[in-house]
């Protein structure tokens, strides 16, 4: 699987007796947007946590561009090009919108060790930060503390932070959950545009079927931690196992 940007091999994690992710082996290509679906508790977020290093695997490996990164801390994986977004809002609440994004840019440029410069004196960093904020139309809120933002804007900021990382692999975990009908298209358009870039590999956990059909090149289905279906959106949606494992819930959800 030489052309895979990201690969997991027999990736497994067990919490006590409960197997939350169960031997997932698959790979993700550049230029491909893969939707990851499955009912609540299927293990989607946990699968992400294993890939980006928030939790350690019980068994199996994660490979980024062919290199085994299973033992690397999350910060290293991020700097190597894994862009992890979070399902639950997970920001720096007392810092401003601008500073939240600027910190990401600074990490990306590996300038966090500088002691004697002023944090905001770097023009290039400032431009990158503004660009990322523009992408989600949040430049006007740049100076607000994050804790004062409505939920939808916090979700948009989450996306802006991913953009600012300029990663090889984007990992979106239900990016539009809880967003207003006005805000969701901003984010979905953005993801659509990213998916046009043939060098980017995108993983998207998403429940809404219309979103998936519009954006995804491929769907993988998780159920009880295992990968149970994998293929083109049309085929996967029609298959019996998905009807049973997932569609019932999705329909109830719409």
């Amino acid at each position, binding site marked *: 699987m030489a052309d895979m940007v990201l690969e997991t091999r027999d990736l497994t994690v067990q919490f006590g007796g409960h197997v939350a992710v169960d031997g997932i082996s698959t790979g993700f290509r550049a230029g491909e947007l893969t939707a990851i679906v499955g009912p609540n508790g299927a293990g989607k977020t946990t699968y992400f946590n294993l890939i*980006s290093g928030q939790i350690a695997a019980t068994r199996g490996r994660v490979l980024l561009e062919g290199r085994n990164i299973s033992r690397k801390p999350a910060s290293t994986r991020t700097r190597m090009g894994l862009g992890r977004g979070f399902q639950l809002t997970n920001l*720096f*609440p007392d810092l401003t919108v601008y500073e939240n994004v600027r*910190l990401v840019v*600074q990490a990306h440029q590996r*300038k*966090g*060790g*500088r002691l004697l410069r*002023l944090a905001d004196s770097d023009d290039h960093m400032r431009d990158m930060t503004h660009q990322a904020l523009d992408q989600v139309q949040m430049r006007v809120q740049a100076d607000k503390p994050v804790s004062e933002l409505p939920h939808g804007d916090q979700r948009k900021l989450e996306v802006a932070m991913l953009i600012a990382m300029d990663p090889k692999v984007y990992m979106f975990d239900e990016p539009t959950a809880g967003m207003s009908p006005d805000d969701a298209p901003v984010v979905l358009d953005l993801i659509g545009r990213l998916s046009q870039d043939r060098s980017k590999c995108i993983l998207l956990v998403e429940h809404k079927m219309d979103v998936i059909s519009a954006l995804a090149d491929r769907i993988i289905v998780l159920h009880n931690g295992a990968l149970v279906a994998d293929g083109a959106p049309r085929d996967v949606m029609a298959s019996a196992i998905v009807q049973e494992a997932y569609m019932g819930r999705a329909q109830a959800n719409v």
Partner: protein
Amino acid sequence: MMVKLLSGDKPGSVLLSLILLGIFLSLAFAPFLFEGTRALDTAARICVFIVLVASYDLLLGYTGVVSFAHTIFFGFGAYGVALASIHMGRSFEALAMGAGAGALGAALLAAVIGLFSLRVRAIFFAMITLAVASAVAVLVSQLSVLTGGEDGLTYRIPRELTAAVTYGQAPEWRIALPEAVAPGTEEGPAMLTLGGDRISGKIANYYLVFAGSLILVLLMLRIVNSPFGRVLQAIRENDFRAEAIGYRVVSYRIGVTVLSAVFAALAGSLFAIWLRYVGPDTVLSFEIMIDILLMVVIGGMGTIYGAVIGAVVLMLAQNYLKDLMAGAATGLADVPYAADLLNPDRWLLWLGVLFVLSVYFFPTGVVGRLRGKRG
């Protein structure tokens, strides 16, 4: 220019700016404004403690790391100067060597403590520092050949920094007072005279301490506003996410522990130069650790300016509360209970009351309150 010196970190409130300016001017002109050696001694202690508390704020306020070993690093710097002065003889080289060696030793110890404990969990770090603090205190009192034990060490510093040398007279400022305020004497119009004292090496010593402290505080202000400083704040806010966006949290925590130890050691060196004596009680005791904690909390965490306010308030309270109470007790000698309550022996009680009140009314410290933020 001013803003640049402060690294763009403006105090953020007019009242706070005025208070800070007042403190700065009082300390800058302390030898000429206040009379007596005790006042000068208090001013020097305030300078040293501002640095010490600010360095602790780097850890607690900016990064959210709790340490009980800060006095050890303070002690490293102080004993460094003492030992170098004893073994190399009185000289400025000895002071510099001692300060350098103390800072280096503090950095190494901090790195070792950090490497062993911060990798595990931040709470573990607090416990380890407590253990190391006790161990070092015991060690210092046992190794009396080297450290002088409980008695500590006295040593000589360059003559230029002692009262033995005179640099001249302080200029006298004569301010003519309006007749109405102070009726003239036979000799002529009323004059208010300021200064005029002998400028001794002690005053030069004070300015060494003052300038050193000022530079160190400005340096820390720069560091907290640097890219590194912002990462520290991010870690305090959400260490999980700081790691996720690409900062190795452990490394930053170890880094700031080392930095803060170096600043504490340098504060200790200044203290040792000022006192010409070091001992476990003056630099290593647990009371000093508690003082540091109180000063950080009273002044406000995560704002270097809080250290300034906290150190001034507590230092003045500790040095002058007793006198104030003695005065008040005499004045109220006839009032039942009041005189008893204000008995100078109860000054600690009143300090405690002051502390509880300040935490109750200023949960974010004096600085937090003046900046208009609430807990």
